[in-house]
């Protein structure tokens, strides 16, 4: 299947010996048969033992622009307040049936709405009741080390304290994130390869549209 491609995750651990505590930047490159697939994915690391110095969850924005969600793929930490500003001047009705967060949010022209707090980890698929082709994905993770790859497929997880982690990669076409062990040690360099099957968002949407048409 041409829409399906293998994604490789190569991780290089670079030690940063500046500062008192050993903190490491983990540079990850997502390699895929389709370059778009790599940029649609999410990378994150979860410490095996609790060593996550919990920073206050930040705020995030998922906008509605010309009947599309922007961005299409987001990642936030649990507890983050996500706002849906609606840059379109028409109404939208954002919803999720996902177990991690079920909600409906009516957005009207010229009226602001309360942010939605995502308090459980998991995949949240977002849709719009009014415009059925609008779809976006939000991955809620229980860690502060996460990143979205850039157009070259590169992502950097910053300032990881030494220790054992699970390094995960996720893409909207995957039912669940795929993880593998990651050891962060100030003096070592680690390269990781994770193999996953991913279907680009364009192909995913086409599949959803076909299913809708058959209903």
């Amino acid at each position, binding site marked *: 299947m041409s829409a399906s491609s293998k994604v490789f995750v190569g991780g290089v651990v670079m030690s940063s010996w500046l500062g008192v505590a050993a903190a490491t930047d983990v540079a990850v490159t997502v390699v895929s048969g389709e370059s778009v697939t790599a940029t649609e994915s999410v990378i994150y690391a979860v410490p095996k033992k609790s060593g996550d110095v919990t920073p206050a969850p930040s705020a995030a924005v998922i906008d509605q622009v010309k009947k599309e969600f922007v961005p299409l793929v987001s990642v936030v930490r649990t507890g983050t307040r996500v706002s849906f500003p609606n840059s379109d001047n028409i109404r939208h009705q954002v919803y999720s049936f996902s177990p991690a967060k079920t909600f409906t949010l009516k957005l009207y*022209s010229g009226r602001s709405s309360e942010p939605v707090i995502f308090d459980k980890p998991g995949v949240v698929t977002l849709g719009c009741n009014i415009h059925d082709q609008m779809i976006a994905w939000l991955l809620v993770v229980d860690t502060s080390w996460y990143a979205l790859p850039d157009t070259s497929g590169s992502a950097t997880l910053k300032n990881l304290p030494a220790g054992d982690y699970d390094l995960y990669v996720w893409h909207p076409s995957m039912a669940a994130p795929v993880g593998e062990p990651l050891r962060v040690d100030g003096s070592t360099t680690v390269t990781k390869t994770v193999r996953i099957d991913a279907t680009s968002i364009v192909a995913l949407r086409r599949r959803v549209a076909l299913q809708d048409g058959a209903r």
Partner: protein
Amino acid sequence: MTHSFRAWAVFAVVWATALLCAGVVQAEASLYQRIGADKLSAVVDEYVDVLSVDPRTRRSFYRSDLKRVKKMLTEHLCDLAGGPCKYAGDSMRDVHAGHGITHSEFLSGVELLRVVLVKQQIPLRERNELLALLAPMKSDVVDR
């Protein structure tokens, strides 16, 4: 027959006629009943299909969930026409806000509805009653 009896008889007939008329008015079916649920669905179905492809009106339906539009419009018309439904959707102002619908787009929408009503063989009286229910919405639909 005495004069007073005749007067009484006339009075009784007038009363009976009045009561009968009142009864007829009360028993008259609602617009919804006269059109019929199936026919109303058929009208909405065809109307939304036409609105969403006609070059004069399709712009506002780009990327819209047409199945939902049909469901909500059927519910709204059923409610307006005295049917058993309760329209629970947004106000017509909220629904159309930001779409920048022009006067001529609105008129095209009305024209398309007229054509569908005729095609679906809705009688003249019911056609007019339905259009009369929708006419006051113009100010909420058209962008001012």
